[in-house]
């Protein structure tokens, strides 16, 4: 897809300024209510809490410090890695101790093979969802500055929105796996295209790649698609081949890796705790990150226990900071007129559509019943 869309994507990306980024972030925020899965108030509370936590630290446009209480550690805000580890890893680990192991009964070799094949078949059974999620992931990956993490949640949100059984999302339903994973893989292609064609890295990995380009004397930008077209194609093909090799290895190893699920919690708890705490520390080599993990873990556990949406909280956390920064930059550059830029208006219409989808669907149903 990346190869075929190069000329179109370059034009599309060049048209994306701060106002368009702001509108896109708003679209991501509009998905928060959907991630609430079942309760709008719980979804809203989760998302708003996430946005609130993202506001800790220096405000990007004014430099004013907010909610830091004079602690220098909080000036840079809460980092994504310790936040995510605390929100998901520790609550699951504590839950695991109560359940003793992830899965209770070891499956037979034949059953495992059948399950693997079912997984492959499921992708084709939900091919339209798989395709849509790939497109969503690719588009969000192309847009510099939005961050690939949002792609996963937006793809998940659209999967919930279009599903015939949205109430089952969050219970391990296969559509809830296909959508974010397809978007997660597709965003890399989009991100690579943006890095090569415009010299704007869309993720940390692409920033490293950009550094590599510069180190060997290559200047990423539109010139890469004319002067070094062979190299650009080579990079995209490498990504494709890498994905195929990765999928093959995963397919071959799945039956062995799955045994981890049957490992007793007595082994899992200490070993996973070690990696969670070391992982949190490794980010900026800061011991206080471990404290962040513990504090967020308490919040994460309560949310899990009382049925609040942790993905909505994470989405709010990722997008909150970007929303505010892009809003004020847009206002400073364009004034309130940024709201009537064509792409912004199209995205705002999408925001309206996403937010009122349920109401509109109910309205249309009532209308059709009358006729």
């Amino acid at each position, binding site marked *: 897809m990346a190869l075929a869309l190069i000329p179109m994507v370059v034009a599309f990306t060049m048209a994306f300024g701060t106002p368009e980024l702001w509108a896109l972030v708003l679209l991501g925020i509009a998905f928060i209510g959907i991630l609430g899965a079942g309760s709008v108030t719980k979804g809203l509370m989760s998302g708003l809490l996430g946005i609130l936590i993202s506001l800790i630290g220096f405000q990007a446009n004014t430099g*004013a410090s907010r*909610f830091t209480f004079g602690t220098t550690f909080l000036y840079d805000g809460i980092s994504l890695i310790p936040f995510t580890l605390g929100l998901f890893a520790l609550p699951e680990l*504590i839950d695991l101790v109560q359940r003793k192991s992830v899965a209770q009964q070891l499956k037979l070799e034949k059953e495992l093979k059948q399950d693997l094949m079912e997984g492959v078949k499921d992708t084709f059974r939900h091919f339209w969802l798989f395709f849509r999620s790939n497109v969503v992931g690719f588009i969000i990956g192309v847009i510099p500055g939005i961050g690939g993490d949002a792609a996963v949640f937006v793809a998940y949100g659209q999967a919930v929105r279009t599903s015939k059984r949205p109430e089952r999302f969050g219970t391990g339903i296969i559509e809830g796996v296909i959508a974010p994973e397809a978007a997660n893989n597709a965003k890399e292609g989009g991100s690579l295209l943006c890095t090569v064609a415009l010299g704007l890295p869309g993720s940390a990995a692409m920033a490293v790649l950009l550094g590599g380009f510069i180190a060997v004397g290559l200047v990423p930008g539109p010139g890469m698609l004319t002067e070094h077209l062979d190299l650009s194609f080579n990079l995209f093909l490498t990504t494709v081949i890498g994905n195929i090799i990765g999928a093959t290895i995963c397919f071959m190893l799945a039956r062995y890796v799955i045994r981890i699920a049957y490992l007793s919690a007595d082994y899992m708890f200490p070993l996973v705790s070690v990696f969670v705490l070391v992982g949190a520390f490794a980010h900026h080599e800061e011991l206080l990150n471990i404290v962040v993990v513990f504090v967020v873990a308490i919040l994460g556990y309560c949310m899990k226990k*009382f049925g609040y949406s942790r993905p909505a909280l994470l989405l709010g956390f990722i997008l909150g900071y970007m929303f505010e920064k892009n809003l004020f930059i847009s206002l400073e550059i364009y004034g309130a007129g940024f709201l009537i830029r064509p792409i912004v208006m199209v995205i705002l219409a999408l925001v309206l559509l996403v937010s009122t989808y349920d109401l509109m669907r109910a309205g249309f149903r009532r209308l059709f019943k009358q006729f």
Partner: protein
Amino acid sequence: MRSSTYFALAVLLLAIVTIILSLRMTDFKAQLLPLAVGIGLALSAIARIVAELRERGTREGVATKPGSSSVMVKSILTSGAWLISFFVMIYLIGFSLAIVLFVTSYLKVHHRGWIQSAALGLLAGGFVYAVFDYALGLDLHQGVLLVSLFGLRP
């Protein structure tokens, strides 16, 4: 009141604190979003509390296993205590030693043999040291106790 209502109340309290702190900010740009989010959070928390109080009557009849709640709380507190002890150990004696001690003691307490517990502890400690400290060049925390006793790098 159910514990989920207490959680919603805690969120409401947080929202009120956010609104108060936002109002005290001097810069309009800095206070705008926290204030808006605080108000939104307070309103949604109030809506949640009202919904939970209304639901209360219908759910009161649902029976829970006697003693299951106290077992769960005990399990959570025990896991939390292990994790906090691990953090204290890291702070005092550094990552490498703390990992060995934590994994060994946890496994031993959970009825694993001494040899198996110590072997897994050493393996985990060695793996973290080899990958993070040696291979990736991460400056793992040495522990304040070891630094003050043996003058290791902080």
